[in-house]
């Protein structure tokens, strides 16, 4: 398990991050948390639960926080595999191993969690959010050519070499689209892995809304400016 790092971008998640990290640590995983300029005790809670914690002095966005995590893992550890994991308790430690298996056996360089590969996994998703996710997925399929079913799932796995080759610039939620574009550009071998997300009142309040999609589109357009 020392060949794997679980990386978590966290912003104002003091209510849940301790438990999230503790569960992962209990399962034997090494955890890196990027405290993205939180104004609560996210960093100390994560540290107390056993994570390596890095802190941004200001909030930059999930994409920026994950890039910091990647930079740390690639430059300061010899981890062969990196798994991104949500901070709000939507994922469970049991979901990590299925993300790693295709990477370890060499059949994939990137694994992407999907709530829509199995109908039962999507049962807990609110209808409005499901509609938004379907629209985002349809757009991503058109623009990347990738046959994806879930384009905004925070559970992803990368081999070290795949991550080293990716050029990532998006700081906020558009990073999810950017990762897909990089997979397409580099022709990385990828596979979707079924995941069931556990929604709580807390995580639903934190999740993306329709207006977030507007911000994502805006960021993607602005990124085209030279």
């Amino acid at each position, binding site marked *: 398990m020392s060949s794997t790092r679980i990386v978590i971008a966290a912003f104002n998640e003091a209510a849940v991050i301790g438990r999230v990290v503790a569960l992962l640590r209990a399962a034997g995983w090494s955890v890196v948390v990027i405290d993205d300029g939180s104004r609560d005790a996210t960093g100390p809670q994560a540290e107390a639960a056993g994570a*390596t914690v890095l802190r941004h002095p200001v909030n930059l966005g999930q994409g920026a926080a994950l*890039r910091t995590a990647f930079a740390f893992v690639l430059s300061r550890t010899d981890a062969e595999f990196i798994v991104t994991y949500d901070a709000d308790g939507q994922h469970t430690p049991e979901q990590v191993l299925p993300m790693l298996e295709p990477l370890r056996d060499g059949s994939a360089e990137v694994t992407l969690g999907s709530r829509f590969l199995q109908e039962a996994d999507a049962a807990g998703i609110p209808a409005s959010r499901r509609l938004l996710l379907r629209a985002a997925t349809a757009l991503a399929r058109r623009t990347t050519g990738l046959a994806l079913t879930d384009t905004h799932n925070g559970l992803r796995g990368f081999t070290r070499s795949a*991550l080293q080759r990716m050029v990532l610039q998006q700081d906020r939620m558009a990073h999810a689209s950017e990762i897909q574009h990089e997979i397409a550009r580099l022709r990385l071998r990828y596979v979707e892995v079924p995941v069931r997300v556990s929604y709580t009142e807390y995580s639903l309040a934190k999740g993306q809304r329709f207006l977030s999609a507007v911000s994502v589109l805006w960021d993607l357009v602005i990124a*085209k400016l030279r």
Partner: protein
Amino acid sequence: MRGSQIVLLSLMVLYALYIVRLRSTLSDRLIYLGLAVVGAVLVLRPDWTNDLAARLSIGRGADLMFYLFVVFSLFHFAATAATIRRMQRDLGDLARALALLTPGAAAPPARASGAASPRTP
């Protein structure tokens, strides 16, 4: 299609090409300077705006100035948005460097096995 429509549509196409492919800080500054010179000339010779407007079938010189102002505003928006994006990128790089100095990040360096981090152009 009138001459004015052709000119304005052409300017829009050039504008899109410029902001996506061709622009640089130096070219932005040259365009700003050029526009300032044009503006000064048209202040000194306002009758030229009416002549040019008539050639382009726009109508009045004031209408031509309005269309040119729209084009200038779009150019200014693109230049400013690109500058802000560069500043955000620099801010992110700075915050990342600080984060990697956090005491918790002081792990032993990896064995030499490839590039240090995902490439950022």
